[in-house]
């Protein structure tokens, strides 16, 4: 269907100023993005490892609970800084974005 571009626009002037608050926020975004990248990489690696099938049930359970805790911690950190999951990304220009953009 042909739609119109009537999506709610982002704030027209999302100022990237030099005030301490926004500098800090920028740094927080950057750091959390990197942490999120690592979390996703570890998660994928853990899933592959589990699929190989040579881990004990206890070990699998421990890995799962650790990852679960990590994800919860990330959510807490995001909430604390008032960030959406979509805020944690870095655009590398021609290389695309650092984290996959959520298709859902």
């Amino acid at each position, binding site marked *: *269907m*042909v*739609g*119109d*571009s009537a*999506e*709610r*626009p*982002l704030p*027209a002037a*999302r100022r990237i100023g030099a005030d301490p608050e926004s500098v800090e926020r920028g740094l927080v975004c950057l750091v959390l993005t990197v942490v999120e990248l690592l979390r996703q990489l570890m*998660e*994928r690696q*853990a*899933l592959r490892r*589990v699929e190989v099938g040579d881990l004990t*049930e206890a070990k*699998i*359970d*421990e*890995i*799962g*609970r*650790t*990852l*679960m*805790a990590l*994800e*919860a*911690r990330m*959510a807490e950190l995001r909430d604390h800084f008032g960030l959406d999951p979509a805020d944690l990304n870095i*655009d590398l220009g*021609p290389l695309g974005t650092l984290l*996959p*953009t*959520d*298709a*859902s």
Partner: protein
Amino acid sequence: MSDHDALWVYAVTRPDAAAEPMEGVAGGPVRLVNVADLAAMVSPVDLAEFGEEPLRRNLERLPWLEATARAHHQVITEMSRTSAVVPMRLATVYRTEAALVRMLVARAADFNAVLARTGHCSEWGVKAYLSAPRSAEPAAAEPAAARSGQGTGGRSSGGPGSGADYLKRRRAQLAADQEARHSVAASAEGLHAELCAVAEAAALHRPQDPQLSGIRAHMIMNATYLVDDRRREQFTGTANRTAELDSSVRVEITGPWPPYSFATTGPGP
């Protein structure tokens, strides 16, 4: 033309191109500079504002850039209603008419080739967005389930097997995400293929930066097409029809544009 005037160049067209008087960038009157069977559309601009240094500075001021880009586009579009045009890139400024003429002589074959290829065509932009989340359910359920298994501290105190359950959920979620990405890519590819069949040429671009476009929806395709004007209705009809078949995709068509994206004249950037 005063000593301080340079020439802003909008586009190249034919000398017999008829146009009503127009004001261009900085309000200067638009006229034609004819060279053989080509004509450059120009208007005078002041070097104080459009010389190399001031131009560099001004192009970095978004309000100035916007006003100038719109004026530039307006002139080109007006002429394109009645004549074939080859748009020039924004900020093509000549200090002297003689230099402009030399360029037209040197590049005549290129301009004629582009006019032959695009003169009977217009450019159309087609952007596609996801109009609805494709895998919302599992994602929404995920954080709640994770937190319900979470203890008070950093370490989970979920019961035995909760870690294994979590991993199962995550594997399913990632598989669903990948499925969604494939599905999205297939939608975009299908739409693009349908449109290419009706177009003379096509170019795919990166999705637009949401900060620039102000649109939050996920853009899955950003393409431009060179469409013969006689096939215009067929093209827009195909885009609308293909979009209707896929309710998860929203299609936005812009056009007709002068053929900005198809004006390359051979070796060059």
